[in-house]
């Protein structure tokens, strides 16, 4: 049934604030009534907050060799070290680095790479998708064929390729500093096609709606129509993909780092920590692998569940 009419005009109750409207929205109601959504949201927020506040929460700066004490090396979790009488929640690695602090900083790097690459790929994909959908013709054919080709390869392969090519171009002296940026670009470039496809689809729908035609009659330029009219109306699905992709990007970064082409041990991400840790697994020092790995799993799972829920919650009543 269609909605009949709103309150008569003239009385003009002031429009509620954005926040008040959000609290009253169907989306927030769906959130309130979904335990999975609440749990994954809290978990994500806690982990993101912990990563951001790593300098405050960590017991040491794990990358400052000066604070490391070799005597504390390979202390198991919760066990008091016999030389210094200190105990470590997650244990220590061979250099005496506190794994708890390392995991905090590692999560920070992982999230940074993940979030930045998502922003990059979403930005690229949205711009290309908008252009393909709105301009049509050859622009569309070109962009979408590239997207099709790229989607037929696994993202990790694309990322490896981009990363490898970029490494070949950059002089070795700057390679280590540039690694972070390269990783972000490589992961971002491997994921834009999905955004482009979705945004193109939504744009094709929106551009035939009468509000876009009205803007054209007024004489608005295609650029302004895409930016001010269509973009705000295609951001819903983009948010969903971005959330799910954040989890995927974090895993992609971990994979690259695990393979040894990602973050260097001097600036380790969770993936780097896992690569280091797996060397000690069979000699009994399980905690060096275990804590980074479980953190990665929980982080990816929480964000993924949140994204999944968001997709379901937005889907049936998108419009």
């Amino acid at each position, binding site marked *: 049934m*269609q909605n*009949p*009419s709103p*309150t008569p005009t003239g009385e003009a109750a002031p429009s509620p604030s954005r926040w008040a409207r959000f609290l009253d929205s169907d989306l927030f109601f769906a959130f309130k009534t979904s335990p999975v959504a609440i749990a994954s949201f809290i978990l994500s927020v806690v982990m993101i907050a912990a990563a951001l506040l790593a300098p405050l929460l960590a017991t040491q700066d794990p990358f400052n060799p000066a604070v490391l004490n070799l005597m504390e090396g390979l202390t198991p979790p919760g066990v008091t070290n016999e030389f210094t009488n200190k105990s470590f929640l997650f244990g220590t690695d061979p250099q005496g680095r506190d794994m708890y602090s390392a995991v905090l900083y590692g999560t920070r790097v992982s999230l940074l790479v993940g979030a930045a690459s998502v922003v990059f790929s979403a930005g690229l994909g949205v711009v290309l998708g908008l252009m393909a959908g709105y301009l049509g013709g050859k622009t569309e054919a070109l962009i979408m064929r590239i997207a099709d080709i790229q989607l037929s390869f696994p993202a990790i392969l694309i990322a490896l390729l981009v990363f490898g090519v970029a490494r070949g171009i950059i002089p070795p002296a700057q390679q280590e500093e540039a690694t972070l940026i390269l990783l972000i670009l490589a992961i971002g470039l491997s994921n834009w096609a999905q955004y482009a496809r979705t945004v193109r689809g939504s744009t094709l729908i929106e551009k035939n709606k009468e509000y876009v035609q009205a803007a054209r009659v007024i004489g608005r330029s295609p650029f302004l129509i895409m930016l001010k009219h269509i973009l705000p109306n295609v951001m819903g699905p983009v948010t969903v993909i971005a959330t799910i992709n954040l989890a995927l990007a974090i895993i992609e970064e971990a994979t690259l780092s695990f393979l040894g082409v990602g973050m260097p041990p001097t600036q380790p991400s969770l993936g780097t920590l896992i690569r280091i840790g797996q060397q000690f697994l069979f000699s009994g020092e399980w905690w060096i692998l275990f804590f980074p790995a479980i953190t990665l799993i929980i982080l990816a799972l929480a964000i993924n569940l949140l994204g999944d829920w968001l997709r379901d919650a937005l889907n049936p009543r998108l419009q």
Partner: protein
Amino acid sequence: MTKNNNASGPVLSVSDLSLEFVTRRGVLKALDRVSFDIARGEVLGVVGESGAGKSLTGSAIIGLIEKPGRLSGGEVRLNGERIDNLSPEAMRKIRGRKIGMIFQDPLTSLNPLFRVGDQIAETVMAHMNVSRAEARARALALLTEVGIPAPESRIDAYPHEFSGGMRQRVVISLALAAEPDLIIADEPTTALDVSVQAQIITLLKRLCRERGTSVMLITHDMGVIAETADRVAVMYAGRVAEIGPVADVIRNPQHPYAAGLMGAIPALKKNVGRLAQISGSMPRLNAIPPGCAFRPRCPKAFDRCAAERPDLMQAGKSRAACWLVDQGVPA
């Protein structure tokens, strides 16, 4: 065939039918004590604006209310027997056999994967005790009757091979297949061009007149009602505002809403100058005012309208839910 057990009574009798939607913002009353009868062979038009509850009334009668909607009171009787409390299984047997249905979009009534002749024959066999050959012969006869050209070849066509008007004819033949007592037609011509609409209305009128089938014709188009219906019920905000013989309601409406509605329709036969207009629009379900639901828009409202809800009262040949009628003042 035993058509009914009380030939004298109405085919359909709806009394105090109420329907509500349970939402997280509270319970919304979508139908509020709707009552009307449809006599044998009669065409009752149900007219109203979007959100008035006219389609919901039709769905409620045939038991097609989906969650979160639920019937909250009243009863529906078909040939004197209650059908609103039947099981979904029993209701399914009534739909098609006793009550035929025609919807706005013919494609919702037709299965795109089956030939139209098979769909009609299927319906005939499901409800009547006949062989497959007899059912097919009947399907052919029905298609001929509804004016499908070259029915012998079209009987094996798929729904998408028909034009919009022809498809609606197929749906009519499907609705009539089991010789129901009542047909509920919900906006049957809204999706069609005027020239095709005229064909469909003429067809529906002729068939039901010949067979003595009653029709509940739900539409927003007062012109279609004028041409087709014997009586008309005007609905507003989930209630019946006025019900009566079609000529009386159109020429001499008793309820101010019905009067406003008639004045708002541009006429084809003369230029009326400025159209009468009712200010505002129908209230949302969550904001139906107490007393008479039309009061905030009514030019003749007085104190009692805000305090008490009027029930249908006799006013000439019609019945109107308006306190003005109680006072003997025509709208």
